[in-house]
């Protein structure tokens, strides 16, 4: 380790520069330009990460409003408040928003902000692509909501089964809007996934070998790989749907050799891993929070990492449990039941490890830890109803009923949203420099916990009593009115809780208690820099000698010097051991990612209306991409200047 550090120090071109001058130069080099144009050209992962988080949270609120509307409609039988046409759009918008515009993006957004800080580097890999992915996501979301306001909101459910979403039964452009939104989000998600993988593999601080990566970073690495394998399937699927609808192909037409079941297989091959894509990052957050608030390293690091990886692998092997009602052969049933139950084992391992950590540590009951304890309560319940759903016979009864609605809200809200709120409380001081208010935080937590259980627990029983999901109303004779009313009351309590959170954010951002660098006494590298971090993240890239650097390391732990501060230079390390490999120049801010995103958006939206949009729309996309990659003389000079001849490498082992 020290060998490597010395290498760097010796190799460096400017060693004896005084800290303050270095700070100023870094500030100058890494700053986001001012003005509207400058802000829009930002490639800073923190700026984009913040925008990403806020945008995703706004979509969460929109999805929440849709949920409240549905709950109000279902509060009593035969309610005439919302008609079937609007209701079907609303529940589709709710599912689509929450899955594609909130859950996955918000986890990636947190990672875009945090991962470079946690691994101790100056920027995320491919910063311009990062900006592009944000704009594509933003434009996709805006597109969906504009279309919704134009009465063109998708209305076939968030999994858009054909033939209902196919050309014959879904006239107009509603289903195309859904399919094209998928294109937007998958492009964005895939880009972020690739950036994260490269950041985690190649940009870690020296010494942070693979077995020292923080748990959240491991979780994001696993998630990113899952995205890379899962998203192309839904890309293929939604493309086939658009082709069927727009140019009359027959991928899903039984009469011409296609099959509506093909849609379901491809969709769920993506759709099931999607659930883990949402909740594995949350597991990382849980580990981070538990470690910090019990003041001890999370127990069973290796077991936790292996569990994450096992979850990711098994997660791809159980998509058919969404299709048990479609006549799956007996052997297939047994296989997918076994796989679906098996995935409870790694989840169990993680829960046991966390409980062990709590047992051996001394928990400090701050709001983030409360949310994690809430996570335990809800997620374990959701996991157990998941085990029930894995059983084919039981699934045949409760599939597509409110039991399933209850189950996946327990898993997704319990498994992902509770840790996410914990994460908001935990990292808010890092992002803004101020702590969120604890009193409001506790109200936020308790109201959310009570409201959530009031909303979703009764749904288990509604499902068993025969209430199918996605119904816009039900007959009074069915006797479902009471529990539905209860669920609506719960939904309103949750709404109040979320409003408290928003108030808390706005109040604390202005007048919250100043946080300092490390308000929680946490162990990971993001707490080693100022709050909020400078735009260059770290004055000197840190080096790492253990899993919990801020707890374990000596005061005089070496830092990396010698990186140039007059250009955006970043240290690249080896994948396994994080030994220094070479230095690389990162790109400057640029408006081209935004322009490319606008051009791409034009192509995507145009292709809903005519196939000609693809060849014609490709022209501006090409132009903007050429602009993006056009080499400038200045950039070329900087590049040349940063290169070194290999002659100096005599002290390599």
């Amino acid at each position, binding site marked *: 380790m020290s060998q490597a550090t010395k290498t760097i120090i010796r190799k460096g071109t400017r060693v004896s520069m005084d800290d303050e001058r270095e700070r100023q130069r870094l500030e100058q080099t890494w700053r986001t330009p001012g003005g509207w144009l400058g802000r829009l050209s930002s490639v800073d992962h923190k700026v984009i990460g913040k925008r990403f988080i806020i945008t995703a949270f706004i979509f969460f609120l929109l999805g929440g409003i849709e949920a409240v509307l549905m709950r109000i409609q279902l509060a009593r039988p035969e309610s005439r408040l919302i008609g079937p*046409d609007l209701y079907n759009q609303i529940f589709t918008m709710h599912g689509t928003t929450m899955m594609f515009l909130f859950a996955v993006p918000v986890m990636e957004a947190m990672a875009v902000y945090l991962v470079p800080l946690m691994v101790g580097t100056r920027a995320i890999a491919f910063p311009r692509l990062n900006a592009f992915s944000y704009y594509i996501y933003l434009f996709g979301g805006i597109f969906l909501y504009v*279309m919704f*306001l*134009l*009465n*063109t909101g998708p209305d076939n459910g968030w999994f858009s089964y054909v*033939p209902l979403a*196919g*050309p*014959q*039964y879904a*006239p*107009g*452009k*509603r289903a195309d809007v859904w399919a094209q939104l998928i294109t937007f989000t998958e492009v964005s998600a895939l880009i972020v996934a690739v950036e994260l993988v490269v950041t985690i593999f190649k940009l870690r601080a020296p010494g942070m070998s693979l077995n020292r990566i923080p748990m959240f970073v491991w979780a994001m690495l696993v998630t990113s790989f899952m995205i890379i394998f899962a998203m192309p399937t839904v890309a293929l699927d939604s493309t086939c749907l658009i082709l*069927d*609808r*727009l*140019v*009359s192909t*027959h991928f899903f*037409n*039984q*009469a*011409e050799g296609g099959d509506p079941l093909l849609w379901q297989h491809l969709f769920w091959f993506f759709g099931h891993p999607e659930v883990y894509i949402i909740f594995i990052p949350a597991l990382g957050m849980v580990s981070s929070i538990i470690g910090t608030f019990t003041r001890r390293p999370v127990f069973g690091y290796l077991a936790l990492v292996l569990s994450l990886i096992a979850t990711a692998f098994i997660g791809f092997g159980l998509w058919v449990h969404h299709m048990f009602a479609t006549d799956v052969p007996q052997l297939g049933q047994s296989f997918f039941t076994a796989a679906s139950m098996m995935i409870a084992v790694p989840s169990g391992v993680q829960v046991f490890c966390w409980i062990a950590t709590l047992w051996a540590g001394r928990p400090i009951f701050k709001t983030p830890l409360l949310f994690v304890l809430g996570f335990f309560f809800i997620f374990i319940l959701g996991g157990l109803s998941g085990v029930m759903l894995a059983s084919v016979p039981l699934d045949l009864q409760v599939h597509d009923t409110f039991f399933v609605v209850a189950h996946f809200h327990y898993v997704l809200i319990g498994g992902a949203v509770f840790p996410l709120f914990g994460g908001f409380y935990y990292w808010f001081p890092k992002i803004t420099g101020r702590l969120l208010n604890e009193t409001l935080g506790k109200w936020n937590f308790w109201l959310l916990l009570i409201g959530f259980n009031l909303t979703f627990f009764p749904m288990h029983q509604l499902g068993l009593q025969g209430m199918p999901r996605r119904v816009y109303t039900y007959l009074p004779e069915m006797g479902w009115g009471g529990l539905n009313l209860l669920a609506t009351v719960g939904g309103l309590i949750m709404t109040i809780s979320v409003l408290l959170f928003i108030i808390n954010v706005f109040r604390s951002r202005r007048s919250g208690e100043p946080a300092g660098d490390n308000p929680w006494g946490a162990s990971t590298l993001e707490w080693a820099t100022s709050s909020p971090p400078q735009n260059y993240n770290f004055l000197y890239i840190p080096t790492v000698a253990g899993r919990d650097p801020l707890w374990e390391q000596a005061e005089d732990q070496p830092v990396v010097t010698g990186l140039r501060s007059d250009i955006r230079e970043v240290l690249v390390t080896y994948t396994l051991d994080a030994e220094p490999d070479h230095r690389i120049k990162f790109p400057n801010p640029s408006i081209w990612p935004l322009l490319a995103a606008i051009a791409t958006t034009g192509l995507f939206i145009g292709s809903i*209306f*005519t196939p000609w949009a693809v060849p014609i729309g490709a022209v501006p996309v090409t132009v903007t991409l050429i602009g993006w990659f056009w080499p400038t003389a200045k950039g070329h000079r900087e590049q040349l200047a940063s290169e070194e001849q290999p002659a100096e490498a005599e002290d390599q082992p």
Partner: protein
Amino acid sequence: MRRARDQLTALFLLALILALIACEREHRRIGESPPPAATTEGVRQSDLQPGEPQPKAAIENLYEKNAYAVSEGKRLFDWYNCSGCHSHGGGGMGPPLMDAEWIYGSNPENIYSTIVEGRPNGMPSFRDKIGSQEIWELVAYVRSLSGLLPKDISGGRDDHMAAKPAEQSTPREKPVPKPAEHSQ
């Protein structure tokens, strides 16, 4: 400043127009009773008439801007067994509907009265059997068969054996009149 406001107004108007177009296309028109086309004219057996041609305001079919209505027309075309004679629009016992030639006129009101009144050589009268909304939907669909409707309104392919190209892929056939005796 003022220019910015003008631009904003223009943007707003553009959005409004877009909204109106989109809303019209996507609106689910349910349970309406639009006025019927005046069908008092009866069946004309000849293009010839004494004097000047009678001026006549063309009747606009609201449903031709509505994708849902056109798809309903397609469903009714099947339900009411129009294919029994017109065979998915390709023509069989009855004349084809996807070509350029129109024996009794291609205007919506012509088609409306063809359905209501019936025509010689086999087209039955559906008076009192189909409501005005459904007839207008059928009219819109029939016109989409020869590509007379905008592509984003016309239907896509069927979920059946492909008997004909989808309406949205049918090139626009400019209507030409065709003498009745040519049809079988």
